[in-house]
């Protein structure tokens, strides 16, 4: 008997809440169905209009013997193709996109309190984080691309008329070739002992296959020569950059009081990710020409 009272009071509260919720609600027919119908009509008209005025592209018949220069993937993969220019192909083509997708899917499991849902950027610092993430990531990406293109060296050369003094700092490939600690011997020269050994010459070819004896297990022998400069330039430096810079961004934003909650960090990182994706896509689409050199380009030049 006594327990019935609180239950009744509670159910009255529940009913009250349900009633208030009802008042906040509209009927799907007509309020939503109408909007859906109108936008379907509008977009049908827009699409027909677009299709009447702009024809889909069709180049010459496919010819495996003629490789166009440049050859490009569809636009939404040009960000990956752009990455390909700066790091090991396995990293750019497979590892990075796979990890990016897994990280994307994991967002709700990191940021799992339900604060701030159902409204556009409702927190006081949310917009700030969008702008900071977008600005830092897009500018940072462009700077990295310019660096790897040797833009600083080119600017130096055009200003002074002299060659850039530190050859191994022109871009990452130069670093891999000319860093003073690993002199420029090819493995063949090295074998023939026709060139001087540098202090780290051994680093260019570590015969891992001789250490990891898979042949003893009846498996094919590993033909694995680890080239430390290549591993450094194609893998370690890119991974450090791609993992380190976002972490650094979050740390600085945390110190500065820009991002404090999980949601704010998530907005910062997600905005940064979108900015990188968009920047790489635009560069890959419109600024990679012949030989994928940096410079303005459009596919329509082909027609």
């Amino acid at each position, binding site marked *: 008997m006594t327990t019935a009272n609180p239950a009744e009071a509670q159910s009255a509260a529940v009913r009250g809440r349900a009633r208030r919720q*009802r008042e906040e*609600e*509209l*009927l*799907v*027919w*007509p*309020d*939503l*169905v109408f*909007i859906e119908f109108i*936008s379907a009509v509008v977009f*049908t008209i827009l*699409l*027909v209009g*677009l*299709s*009447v005025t*702009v*024809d*889909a*592209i*069709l*180049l*010459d*018949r*496919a*010819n*495996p013997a003629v490789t*166009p220069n440049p*050859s*490009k*993937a*569809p636009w*939404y*993969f040009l960000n990956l*193709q752009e990455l*390909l220019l700066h790091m*090991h*192909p*396995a990293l*750019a*083509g*497979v*590892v990075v996109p796979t990890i990016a997708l897994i990280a994307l*899917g994991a*967002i*709700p*499991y990191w940021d*799992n*309190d*339900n604060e701030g*849902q*159902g*409204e*556009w950027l409702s927190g006081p610092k*949310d917009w700030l984080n969008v702008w900071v993430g977008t600005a830092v990531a897009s500018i940072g990406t462009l700077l990295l691309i310019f660096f790897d293109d040797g833009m600083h060296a080119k600017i130096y050369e055009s200003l002074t008329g002299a060659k850039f003094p530190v050859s191994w700092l022109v871009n990452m490939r130069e670093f891999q070739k000319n860093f003073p600690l690993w002199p420029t011997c090819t493995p063949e020269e090295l074998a023939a002992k026709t060139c001087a050994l540098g202090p780290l010459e051994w680093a260019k070819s570590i015969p891992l296959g001789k250490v990891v004896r898979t042949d003893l297990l009846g498996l094919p022998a590993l033909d694995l020569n680890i080239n430390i400069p290549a591993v450094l330039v194609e893998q370690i430096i890119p991974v450090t950059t791609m993992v380190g810079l976002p972490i650094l961004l979050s740390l600085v934003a945390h110190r500065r009081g820009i991002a404090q909650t999980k949601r704010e960090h998530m*907005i910062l990182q*997600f905005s940064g990710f979108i900015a990188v994706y968009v920047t790489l896509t635009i560069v890959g689409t419109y600024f990679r020409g012949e030989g994928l050199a940096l410079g303005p380009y459009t*596919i329509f030049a082909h027609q």
Partner: protein
Amino acid sequence: MASTERPTRRSMGDRLYDAIFSNRVWRSIFRSGYPNTPRNQMLAVATNVFLHLHPTRIHRTHVKITHTFCLGGLSFFLFLGLTISGVLLMFYYVPSVERAYEDILRLDTDVRFGQLMRNMHRWMAHGMVLTVLMHMMRVFYTGAYKPPREFNWVIGVVLLVLTLLLSFTGYLLPWDQLALWAITVGTNMVGSAPLLGEPNRFVLVGGFQVGQNALIRFYTLHVIGLPLMAAVFMTVHFWRIRRDGGLAKPL
């Protein structure tokens, strides 16, 4: 009481209304009358299999265009449009390296509305990639991935991948230089994966280079495999929205 009294003579409009919406044929199809009363409006949504994807009522803020920008709905709309235009294109297109390019040329020049259909299909495909990406951004920035909607976000990521794959497999079908080399570049990326990359690329392309085998594989994936998977995941996506209590709203 007066209001419930029947008028002595029914107007022309009322009789017409009854003739259209109360006859046996209409009733056999729709069960409820024309949706001009709240009861009939709710019944219209609840008893129609297509409209039943919706709840019968919806929160005030969710019908504001600026809440969703209709982006999820547009992605779905484009998917349906792509299915229809795609079926029409299939009437004329044969996925063989001898015929594919010529079929597309013929479609552009000889077939009535052929060029229009191809253009529609192409622009809708690009559009869908864009709307899906933007839909993901709107869901993120409205915090709609938070509990209990975590898993629907994951299903969304799968849909994003399927959308990209649908577009990618379609890219090869015109069999022009753009198609061949874009797919060559793209599949080479797969091939660069450590250990399993090359075998995977070989399975995808059906050989060492993009040719007839690749064309028939991409075609099959494009017209049946991937659309079926996308349809299944979309069904789950929509079902979960209903199960999770409609769109996310502020606490």
